[in-house]
């Protein structure tokens, strides 16, 4: 059995979600017989890790601190094996602009988009280009921060008049934003563990127009269906797309790929990939693992094994 440091909490807006993910992970690790050290990540992380001397770190830290690759850089530097992807794959998943460019360049379907920095509007007069963007993307347009999780700051603009305030909101979270074509259809997620796709999960919002922060984490606000009621072809295609994204970004350990199935055309498109998927009781990865016959404890145990195997290899 190993000494496992569970990294959770932090100072991001996803702190509470991370604490819930981390708490569940700790319980599972204890049931598996590991020696568990829960660490609420703060300014004293490095000395705390040095003191704890873990064999492996379980990354349950969401938001920028856990997902942009810097935590992983730090763990590499300290020589501590860790769950999930390395710094470069994390960076590719975390930045939606980078991720979407990579997918588009690789020929993977992702909704049309334009990305702008705040400076582009302030200094380059990008506002002049908004009508052209609106023409090409057609309403409603999804406006989201380039970096961030849990659907925070995502707005739907259903007319040109709503675009500026949606941009202002998105810029509250990041200096770079994405304007994306809205895909009306079904909200799907494929989790991948060690290069194998798990069953597809579908999130069906009960009331809201879309899957927002609260709908995502409050029990009863969203109904999850796993395996999603898709045709065998759609299921295979969704899983294949997720694996292509996994390979393209260079993920390892675990990742979750979010997709949409267009209601009109039936086409599947990839929205984004998440390098530190949620582990809360409403999260999608645990549900997918469960549908695959892999209980939560087994999933957590597997991720730890993968992290340790990575070093041994």
């Amino acid at each position, binding site marked *: 059995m190993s000494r496992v440091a569970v990294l959770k909490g932090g100072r991001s*807006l996803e702190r509470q979600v991370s604490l819930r993910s981390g708490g569940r992970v700790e319980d599972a690790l204890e049931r598996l017989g590991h020696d568990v050290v829960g660490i609420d990540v703060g300014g004293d992380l490095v000395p705390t890790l040095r003191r704890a001397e873990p064999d492996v770190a379980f990354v349950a830290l969401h938001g920028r601190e856990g997902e942009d690759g810097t935590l992983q850089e730090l763990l590499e530097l300290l020589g501590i094996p860790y769950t999930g992807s390395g710094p470069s794959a994390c960076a590719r998943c975390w930045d939606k602009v980078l991720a979407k460019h990579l997918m588009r360049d690789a020929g993977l379907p992702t909704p049309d988009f334009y990305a702008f920095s*705040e400076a582009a*509007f*302030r200094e380059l007069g990008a*506002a002049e280009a*908004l009508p052209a963007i609106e023409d090409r993307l057609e309403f409603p347009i999804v406006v989201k921060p380039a970096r961030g999780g849990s659907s*925070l*700051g995502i707005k739907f603009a259903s007319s040109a008049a709503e*675009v*500026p*305030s949606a*941009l*202002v*909101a*998105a*810029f*509250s*979270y990041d200096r770079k934003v994405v304007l994306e074509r809205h895909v009306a259809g079904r909200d799907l997620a494929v989790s991948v563990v060690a290069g194998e796709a798990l069953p597809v999960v579908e999130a069906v919002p009960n009331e809201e127009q879309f899957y927002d922060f609260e709908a995502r984490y409050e029990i009863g606000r969203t109904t999850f269906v796993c395996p999603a009621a898709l045709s065998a072809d759609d299921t295979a295609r969704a899983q294949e797309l997720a694996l292509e994204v996994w390979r393209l970004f260079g993920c390892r350990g675990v990742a979750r790929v979010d997709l949409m199935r267009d209601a009109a055309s039936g086409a599947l498109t990839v929205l984004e990939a998440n390098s530190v998927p949620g582990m809360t009781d409403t999260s999608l990865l645990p549900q997918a693992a469960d549908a695959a016959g892999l209980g939560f404890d087994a999933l957590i145990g597997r991720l730890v094994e993968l992290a340790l195997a990575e070093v041994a290899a």
Partner: protein
Amino acid sequence: MAAEGTIGVDPQDILVTTGGQQVIDLMCRTLIDPGDVIIAEALTYPGAVPCFGAYEADVVQIEMDSDGMRVDEMEAALDQLAREGRRPKFIYTIPTFHNPAGVTMSLPRRKRLVEVARERELLVLEDNPYGLLRYEGDPLATLYSLDGGQFVVYLGTFSKIFSAGVRLGWAVAPQPVYQKLNIGKQAADLCSSALSQLFIATYFRSGEWPALLAAFKERYHRRRDVMLDALAEFFGPEATWTHPQGGLFLWATLPDFIDTTDLLARALDERVAFVPGRGAYLDGRGGSSMRLNFSYVADEDIREGVRRIGAIVQEQVALYGTLTGAAPPAPVDERRPGEPEALADVLHLPRRETGDRRAGTSE
């Protein structure tokens, strides 16, 4: 209560509770079945919202202006409900130094509210945590004293005049209601901590509390003025805010293109926080407003916090101007349909007036 001029309360009618919050819960627990109507102010105490929600109440929110709840609108709402064959279980109001709006119900409205309650035989829950924290103007009679305790249930607490940590409050209720509340109280926690009660009783008997209250008032009054000054200096002409005569909070409203829930994300980067306005409504309104608490933080930190939020607001106003290619309109001119007129008017003293008033009344 006597300190606020509410006299003649029969000690038999007083139910000691675990904080004032428990009174709200007990009222819901004993009176509300799913779908029952509660009348509340728009906006209302964010801490009451999840309580009302937990009991699946249908909350009808009545607009406010600078004189508190629009009682005429409440009567219209009651008429409408009566036509639907529905009758509210109670009217929830924070008439004095409203949290989060910072406004106070005028005496004529208080009298009318009590009359309406009597005419229609409706219970009123008067939530009064802040009544003793008045910094200017004359005290107004509580609803309880105007009504004589027939239809008004009074909620009091030691949280704001002594310490929130002792978790001690009370309800004064007409006997039939008192009995039901008491049964609910037994089920909830039997009785509130005897240690806390002894502690409070001993302290208040010692006679020192008026000096403590005076110290609180002096401090909060000063901090309110610091905040009003800072708002006038840093929040820009697009923002408006209330001028509370007491209590702990004021309510600021930004141009409608700014969503304060998103703004908070940005503000946290600058290490300053506030309560986004949406939590004070049950229907998603309040998105451009925020509650600011001036009681807790030191004077210089209030000023610095308001400066930081103001800088972000200015930045977003400028960005919006760039995006729309025009100077952003004032919020009063371009309100989203459905935004409460009364709320945008509530209140707020324009900047210059705020400055003038402060100069006349503070140190």
